[in-house]
């Protein structure tokens, strides 16, 4: 057993300093397309390649609806006019400002994760929040098996038909005040599955969503950023990644 202790000590500390310091290690986030200006109005190729309607045109400017982007790279690869991508991960948007946790309670928040039809990628990134690189415990976030002790309901997936009832039951079992966090493009708007005979168009169909985290999947840092926002540990500051202000449509 002492071997494990030595192994652990030898590994040292690998944990990110985020949110106190910037985290820019390559490979921690897929990034997002940038907003570009100066595209000839007749050139509609780039936006027509976007399969989810994340790119929209306003005169000569290409706007990005980040909640729709699924990082498929169709706007940056295999086209003659690739648009540049920008790093960053601070994508979370608060939908209900009143849900931000008051100062006295923000250092210990318990999260119940519900998989409502997720593909496995979002869940894996959520699982990785507990790994030594991100270690969300240091910021006072804990994953709890029971909704009865949960402050935040974290939902991933487009809400498959069969998961509606379990999701509602988990929500009802939570004590008030309840906060709902939708994680990933599917949970925000149905993603590539979209509304249909067994999938909905996101968590907002059946529950009031307080905070949305775009991405397909959102990297652990993006989820961590969202958690810090809802906990009031981070303020709604200008978003370095996209140049837009959070909360703006």
């Amino acid at each position: 057993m002492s071997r494990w202790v030595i192994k652990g000590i030898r590994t040292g500390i690998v944990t990110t300093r985020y949110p106190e310091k910037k985290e820019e290690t390559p490979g921690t986030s897929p990034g997002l397309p940038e907003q570009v200006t100066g595209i000839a109005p007749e050139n509609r190729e780039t936006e027509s390649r976007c399969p989810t309607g994340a790119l929209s045109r306003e005169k000569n400017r290409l706007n990005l609806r980040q909640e729709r982007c699924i990082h498929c790279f169709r706007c940056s690869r295999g086209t003659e006019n690739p648009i540049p991508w920008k790093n960053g991960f601070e994508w979370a948007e608060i939908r209900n400002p009143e849900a931000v946790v008051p100062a006295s309670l923000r250092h210990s928040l318990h999260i119940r994760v519900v998989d409502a039809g997720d593909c496995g990628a979002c869940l894996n990134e959520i699982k990785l929040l507990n790994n030594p690189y991100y270690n969300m415990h240091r910021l006072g976030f804990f994953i709890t098996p029971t909704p009865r002790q949960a402050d935040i309901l974290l939902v991933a997936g487009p809400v498959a038909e069969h998961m509606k009832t379990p999701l509602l039951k988990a929500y009802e079992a939570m004590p008030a005040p309840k906060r709902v966090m939708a994680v990933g493009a599917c949970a925000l708007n149905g993603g590539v599955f979209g509304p249909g005979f067994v999938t909905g168009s996101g968590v907002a169909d059946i529950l009031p969503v307080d905070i949305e985290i775009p991405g397909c999947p959102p990297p652990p840092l993006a989820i961590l950023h969202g958690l810090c926002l809802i906990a009031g540990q981070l303020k709604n500051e200008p978003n370095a990644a996209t140049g837009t202000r959070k909360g703006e449509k």
Partner: protein
Amino acid sequence: MNIQEIAAEIQSRWNNEIKLSTIAGTLECRCHREHLVPLCGWLFNRLNCHFAGLTAEELPDRWNLDYLFTPAGESGIIRINTAAPLKERNFPSISIAVHAADWHEREAEDLFGLTFEGHPRLGDFILHDDAWQEGVEPMRENFSAADVLSGRNPKPDWRPRRILKAPGAFIMPVGPVFSGEAESVHFQLETIGEEVLRAFPRLFFKYRGVEKLAEGRSVDNGLLLAERFAGSTAFSHALAFSMAIEKLSGEEVPPRAEVLRVFMAELERLRHHLGVIEGICSSTGLAVGTGQCAILEEEALRISGALTGHRYLFGLCIPGGLSRDFDKTALKSAAERATDIVRRMNSIEKLLINTSSFLDRLEEVGAVTEKQAHDFGLAGPVARASGYSCDTRKQLPYGAYRNFDFDSPHEREGDGYARLRLFFAEVRESGRIMEQAAEKLPPGKTAVPCNPDAGTAISTAETPRGATWHRIRIGTDGKIKRYRLITPSFANWHGFHIAAENFAFQDFPIILATFGLSVAENDR
């Protein structure tokens, strides 16, 4: 027996009543319904052919059913085809002879409304009986995927079937929302106290109807579904999808793209297996081991992210090649970092196999025999840990795998420890393949344009969890008409209960972790 010998034997046994043809390594047998059970049973039980899956399809004038087998230890595919007019919905059930077909028939019954005569247990499978009324058949042509069904009339008094009749026996329900961040699946564990005597996983809480959603979509849009229905093995499924489209277009993928695809597929395997090993450590409560493996998994994800732009390799594989090129130095440095991960994983393995409290939880726990692996048609590392040989990369080599020097590791015992050893061994092999790929990367293009002709194609690829089969029919308008996904998790979930039964409750999560199952991949 290879497929020529099998063809000759079928011809003599069934006196030319079964029409045979061989196209590009695939033996096609067209037979009447009455020959299905004897033919499939003979292939499965006498020749030990592997049952890969069943594809049902509604054509304008008939039902079309394909049963896929692969011969034991030989290369090739055997496709048993049978058809019937649309108004006849009864087919004989082959599950009596071919147990591996059990869930496939239940699926076709639920989604198409077909009846498999002689099947002991139809109903309540994909569409849960407590949420849907009978008669909803979403895979039929006249059912629209965009329809939101209202006015449903389910059976709210649905109750799980109880097998155990002993006094004091009860069902312990687990899930679908359980544990920390587990995928949604419901278990009914029948017990009289200490041991799980019967484990029944009730799946498809996450059924998203991917096969239905794909119908009518363009190839490019279908690719998004193939890639994102099981995100943790996205590249392998995108690869299988792309290979099927390439077959229909007749395009040759450039050699550079083939080698890069091998590199990426093995990077995905390495990352997936590290995640499974982490899960096994975590299920036994070994905190430092979990943390150490999690560090390696995160580093593998960062290699993927820094190299390709996406941590889960989304948006990379396209029909005709890859969506972008890589330079050799970047690939070499990624391979070196992967080798470093393998080296550190080896030192963790050494620590693990010297930790007796950890091994006690795995050894002789959750054993699956080679015979059971065959009977249930298990796939991937789970089957190979029982000594059941089934590596697509070796048996039906695709892409550039023929040119690589690698082993497909096997174990014999089939218990949790054998599965753990197998995951370690496969990570080492993946590291070796990545090194070779970075070394021998040929020059040239990374993609060719790929426009599929109308028709049907089947492709298979070895995902980290085992063989997947993608069957795609493209219509004359270039849109997807039918998309069938046969996944390794579907096979392995079917066999999971044999490992979990007759063990104590505290062994259950450990056995589950050693299977490395994905619910999303099963539910589709």
